[in-house]
């Protein structure tokens, strides 16, 4: 579960060769220890993280970097302990409301001074997501589009087109169902996947502004708008669009259904692409489309969650930590780590180039030119933690027992009344 990677003398030999060039110039001489806690535990992200530490270590040979990679799910509960008790110098986390508890408790360092630097202008697009109380609390290192990843070969076999509105989405789905497959695979054991469906259905039905107001506690759950969203969802549920027994699966466990062709598509972030490719779906079999319009005239908005690095306020080597953050967001590093053979996601630095990868190009295109409504983080990052939990549980229940909708909405409103007071 945890591995410690030390970029010390082992890499010095190599470092001497590279660092003797221009790379080492212009950087302050850093020494001491740099302790990094990371949640990038899936295979591809882990390799990226270890690669970054290695390259940073080469630039700063006197710095002793200690990297601890913690399982991504376990990290979410451990962060509270290590931030208060045994703070590293750099830690991974997420943007927007998800960092609020730690910002409020003064556990993340205010790094507005870093953001004031000239080079950081290239990160302007994500500045809002990193800002709370008018200050910045971390830097982004990657973000990714959400959308529908589908089996192109199945669509071709059935003569289907990428849908552009809800009616087409449903008629496609019916054709897929008639061929003995399910339309969408999903695994709701850990709840948040259902949040993705709600985000899209609600943003397409009621628009970005309503959606973000709802998650910010300014709108009622039991309202005609939200009921309309659930009514649309229910149409899909009543068709039997989703795989059976999804409550038993994690999202990883739901992937075999699309790989085997038992389900034709999945609504997911771009991080689903590497495992699907690894399972044998090449670009002739896997394709992507933007979630189609539901209500005409509602501007399209997307989920594009941003993953981040922070400096805990208990950091013992903040200078080195800041230098590491500068390195992480630098244009070259952004291009490198977000490439199709690495994270396979989108760089946050405007001066980086997006890798020549089908999905990345499509995603970048979509987010930069076809998302006029706005860009949301994600259900459990836009809503406060407690509300996200209660909400996603309600969404899962709705997917299994749509008849309980009244009860669910009442429960959510009751929870909201307590949480947003």
């Amino acid at each position, binding site marked *: 579960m945890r591995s410690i990677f030390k970029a010390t003398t082992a890499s010095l030999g190599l470092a001497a060769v590279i660092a003797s060039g221009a790379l080492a110039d212009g950087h302050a001489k850093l020494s001491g220890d740099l302790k990094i806690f990371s949640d990038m535990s899936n295979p591809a992200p882990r390799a990226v993280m270890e690669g970054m530490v290695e390259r940073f270590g080469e630039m700063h040979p006197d710095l002793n970097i200690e990297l601890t990679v913690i399982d991504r*799910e376990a990290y*979410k*509960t451990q962060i*509270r302990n290590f931030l*208060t008790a045994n703070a590293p110098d750099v830690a991974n986390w997420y943007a927007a409301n998800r960092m609020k*508890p*730690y910002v*409020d*408790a003064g*556990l993340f360092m205010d790094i507005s001074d870093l953001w004031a630097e000239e080079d950081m202008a290239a990160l302007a697009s994500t500045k809002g997501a990193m800002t709370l109380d008018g200050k910045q609390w971390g830097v982004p290192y990657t973000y990714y589009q959400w959308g529908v990843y589908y089996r192109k070969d199945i669509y071709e076999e059935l003569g289907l087109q990428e849908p552009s509105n809800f009616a087409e989405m449903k008629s496609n789905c019916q054709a897929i169902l008639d061929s003995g497959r399910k339309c969408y695979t999903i695994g*709701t*054991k*850990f*709840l948040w996947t259902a949040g993705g469906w709600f985000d899209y259905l609600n943003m397409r039905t009621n628009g970005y502004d309503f959606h973000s107001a709802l998650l910010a506690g300014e709108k009622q759950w039991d309202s005609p708008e939200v009921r309309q969203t659930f009514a649309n969802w229910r149409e899909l549920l009543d068709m039997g669009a989703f795989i*059976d*027994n*999804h*409550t*038993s699966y994690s999202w990883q466990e739901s992937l075999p259904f699309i790989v085997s062709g038992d389900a034709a598509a999945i609504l997911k972030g771009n991080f689903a692409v590497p495992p699907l490719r690894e399972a044998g779906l090449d670009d002739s079999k896997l394709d992507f489309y933007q979630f189609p319009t539901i209500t005409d005239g509602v501007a399209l908005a997307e989920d594009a969650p941003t993953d981040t690095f922070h400096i805990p306020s208990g950091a013992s080597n903040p200078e080195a930590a800041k230098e590491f953050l500068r390195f992480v967001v630098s244009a070259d590093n952004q291009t490198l780590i977000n490439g199709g053979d690495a994270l396979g996601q989108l760089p946050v630095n405007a001066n980086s180039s997006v890798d020549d990868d089908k999905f990345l190009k499509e995603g970048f295109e979509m987010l930069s030119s076809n998302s006029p409504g706005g860009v949301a983080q994600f259900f*459990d990052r836009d809503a406060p*933690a*407690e509300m*996200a*939990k209660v909400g996603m*549980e*309600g969404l*899962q*229940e709705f997917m*299994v027992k749509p008849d309980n909708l009244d009860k669910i909405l009442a*429960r959510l409103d009751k929870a909201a009344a*307590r949480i947003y007071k």
Partner: protein
Amino acid sequence: MTAPALPQSEIKRSWYKRNEIAVTPWLFLIPGVLFFIVYVIAPIFQSVGISFTEWDGLGDPVNVGLANYAELFDDDAFYTSLRNNLIWLVLYLLAIPAGLLIALLLNQTVFGIRLYKSLFFFPFVISQVVVGLVFTWFYDPTFGLFNVALSWIGLGPVNVLGDENYVTYGIIAAGLWPQTAYCMILYLTGLNAVDPEQIEAGRLDGAKGMRMLWHVVIPQLKPATFIAFVVTIIGALRSFDLISIMTNGGPFGESRVLSFYMFEVALSEYGFRMGYGAAIAVVLFLIMLCFIVYFLWSMYQEERGR
């Protein structure tokens, strides 16, 4: 020392010497008592204290009086957890008769019996996490052995862990597997201590089968039964790891028990309500207290009876 005052020094022994018999046991107990107070007694009072506050675990607690308890009273999820706790308590006790049955079966001398015994004991040795994982795969609605077996007799598929009606029973079944092994071991040692003369006497009087078991063997197994009862009740109330591994409390919270619900609201990914979690912990503690008092009381009776 010079010795003129020798008889005096005999009278004026040190305080410790004079009280050695009374003090020594306490000296030996000090480390244990100290740890018990720091790690068990003090946290109980701390939890009760926290349960009157609203606290996210990071900032400053705010005193809210009984508000957390008032909310518990009106919380569906709390009642679901409480109900599941009761189901656990009742069904987990099945481990005792099942353990006895297996112990009786294995309490014979045939070739290789030690191997059989260890095989039966095996589930108790492996970690609960592994038990949970194995059963999760076993129950898998698409690929799991359970549904394959059901299809042989024309039933299924049943999504045990994804259906709110079956999920708690499915997890309890997984928990019974190691717990039965534990009870079995307790009874096997108990059976070793059964007095052969009484069996002999019973046989002479014509007792066999169930009558022999009920009137001669089981009364002699009373100490083993008591321990099995204690560990099973405690095991049922501590049922946390299996739930966390197998369902994470789902689907939509239907497999939660109080300990898991407490963890979820206070310590999990989205949990920042230490006060509310502490209130649940206090309720769980009160339930446990009933059993603890009963156990202590019956042990006390036993001691006095001797």
